[in-house]
């Protein structure tokens, strides 16, 4: 594996191209932000609805840059012992038990408590060295020789204390461990944070990041995404499918279908080897992209109308392309 920054992006277009080569279709905005993040060495904070490819972007970047992807999933109650490091207490204890004999050997000839302690001291903080350190994602990311892509997923789920703790990592790429001192990154990782906006992030965190909002893609972009992700799909079906999904998104739904659901649905249709969308087909497969009972009820009422509209738009898109 080569180092992170041996890779060079020449321009925004280059980013877009290379993303496409690993099957990630990046909009101009995404590409620009990535290009900047890479050159400014700043973290990216990505917001947007679930399933529009926030996490996917990190995966794509690690593939392009050919470095490891280290992922840290945030949740309520996540603290530094799970994110940064932990002492392997069990191992420490086991070693002291096993080394009892060695210890008494070592202590042989020592007169009194003071001398014994003196002698132990000369052997360093053996038990608080890196041998007994359990590295967690953040520590690993800083320790990586070749750099890495660090994905801090769903940061909004973590607590505010943890968010504050992250600040040092994000701005200076270093962490302080009381027993070992400050550890700086060997190679600055490319950091990507994602948030589903369940709560507002603090200003301090936002200031340290580039902000990127990924909305639902427009029809053209979504077609491109489908083309690379589900290549077997026929042209007409793809156009109809995208137009249909786009109109579903205009409905008043609890959870709108996002790109990942579109892809799922496309795969299902491919399996069923469908050529065209029909009312029955849509009704039977509605549950692949709508995940709530109420949503399915709302959508199934309007299938016929939306399908007609989708066909029209698909034809229009076709005509425009031709």
């Amino acid at each position, binding site marked *: 594996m080569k180092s992170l920054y041996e890779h060079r992006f020449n321009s*925004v277009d280059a980013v877009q191209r290379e993303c496409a080569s690993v099957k990630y279709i990046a909009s*101009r*905005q995404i590409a*620009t*932000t990535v*290009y*900047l993040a890479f*050159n*400014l060495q*700043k973290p*990216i904070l990505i*917001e947007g609805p679930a399933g529009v490819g926030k996490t996917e972007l990190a995966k794509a970047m690690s593939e392009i840059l050919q470095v490891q992807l280290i992922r840290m999933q945030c949740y*309520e*109650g996540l*603290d*530094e*012992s799970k994110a940064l490091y932990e002492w392997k*207490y*069990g191992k420490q*204890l086991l070693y002291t*038990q096993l080394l009892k004999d060695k210890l008494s050997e070592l202590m042989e000839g020592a007169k009194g408590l003071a001398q014994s302690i003196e002698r132990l001291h000369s052997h360093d903080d053996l038990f608080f060295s890196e041998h007994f350190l359990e590295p967690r994602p953040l520590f690993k990311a800083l320790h990586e020789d070749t750099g890495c892509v660090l994905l801090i997923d769903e940061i909004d789920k973590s*607590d*505010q204390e943890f968010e504050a703790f992250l600040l040092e990592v994000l701005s200076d790429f270093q962490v302080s461990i009381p027993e070992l001192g400050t550890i700086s990154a060997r190679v600055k990782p490319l950091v990507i944070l994602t948030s589903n906006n369940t*709560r*507002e992030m603090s*200003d301090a965190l*936002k*200031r340290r990041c*580039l*902000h*990127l*909002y990924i909305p639902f893609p427009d029809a053209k972009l979504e077609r491109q995404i489908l083309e690379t992700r589900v290549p077997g799909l026929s042209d007409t079906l793809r156009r109809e499918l995208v137009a249909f999904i786009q109109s579903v998104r205009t409905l008043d739904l609890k959870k709108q279908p996002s790109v990942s659901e579109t892809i799922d649905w496309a795969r299902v249709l491919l399996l069923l080897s469908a050529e065209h969308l029909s009312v029955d087909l849509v009704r039977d497969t509605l549950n692949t992209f709508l995940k709530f009972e109420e949503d399915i009820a709302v959508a199934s009422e309007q299938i016929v109308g939306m399908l007609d509209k989708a066909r029209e738009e698909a034809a229009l898109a076709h005509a425009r392309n031709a």
Partner: protein
Amino acid sequence: MQETLEDFFKALRGSDLDVSLTDGIEAGRALSIVGVADREVLRHALGATLAKSLDDRIVFDACFDRFFSYDLFRKASGRTNDPNAMEVKTSESQDVRHEEESAPRVGKGQCAGAGGGGGAQGLADMLLKNDQAALIKSMNEAARQVGVTDIWFFTQKGQYIQKIQEQMGLKDLNQLINGLAGNPQAAGRVTNLKLARRRLFEEVRNFVEKQLAMYGTAPTKRLHDEYLQSQKLSNIEQRDFQRMHEIVRKLAKRLAVIHSKKKKQETRGQLDFRKTMRRNVAFDGVLFETYWRTKVIERAKVIAICDVSGSVRNYARFLLLFLYSLTEFMAKIRSFAFTNTLVEVTDVFDDMPVNQAVDKVMKEVGGSGTDYGQMFRDVEDRLMSKIDKRTTVLILGDARNNHGEPQADVMRLLHQRAKRVIWLNPEPRAFWGLGDSEMKRYAPHCHIVKECNTLKHLERTMDDLLRVSTAAV
């Protein structure tokens, strides 16, 4: 480019988007990396560094479009009316902007100071030739010279229009027109010049209006907010309701953040020794597994009761507004409204947008004939069993009871059972206890009693509340 960027920051700040110094530096670095060749890339690059949320981004995009648009003097340039003009123009105008930055600052002197024939001739020529680039350049320079970015209020418009025109050489143009006026041979030229002068005025006015929209929005808004905050809630008009909602929301959010702390907090480094010993009996007393002390933080339950009767009609909307905002941010809050009998409105607040919800409650619950006694009897019957030492009871009302039975002993019971009883009264403290006000009777049974009839009061009360609640944790 530096100055343009600084002006742009100023415009952003004017549109109520904070640009800190570090943001500015980052934006500068971003700019130097991506360059100005591609408008969209530039937009995204600046957007990524300057906008910090989706809302910011919307403001940013609008501001970007306004700031980097150069449609001025275009209507007149009828000759270049090919459909591609727009795209060409945007890139072109950026070049113009660019050149203007790099060009030595001589133009300014020529236009303004050098006066005499040169300036007038220059301006007249530009106008007659319809030299769009030169006109924009001249106008921008004049604008910078008179400091148009400091414009705050619409009353300053006329002044700035005049100043910019003068800076561009209006005086000389006038002289030129006057000089030619007597000359019959130059009649056509005079008409043309007069027309051009007219157009110049229009364009400059257009320009200044745009500048005002860009730089003046936030200061005016801030001033308005300040006014709203210190005004009595009863005096605030209906049309400010939306704005008030935003301000109140911010307040409520701050309160909610304190309550949204996680339930358990591990106090790292403090061993729970008893638990550890007990669990490790299996390992012969060797302490393999450790247990750490945790601190349990309870999420407060809130019961909010709001008076919506005739006597507080003017305040009720805002009290409800505040209540609504609280329900948005807190999970365990139950809201009630009453004129005489207690009505639960939690569901209404959950289901409807703010305006509708408030209207509905006002219509269905509001009325005359306040009866605090009845309300307290309802509280005793229906709610007392739900109130325990984790509950905060928040009462919003003026305690004007129409000389009815006050039922103060229910208040005493509340005080004993609940964690906190807070009473916010919209009347000034001096009026408490006068007439049919029972406030003096209720007040001793509250943990916190506050007069609350402006947003500032509300804010201060919130601060007190937060201090108490953090201390209580």
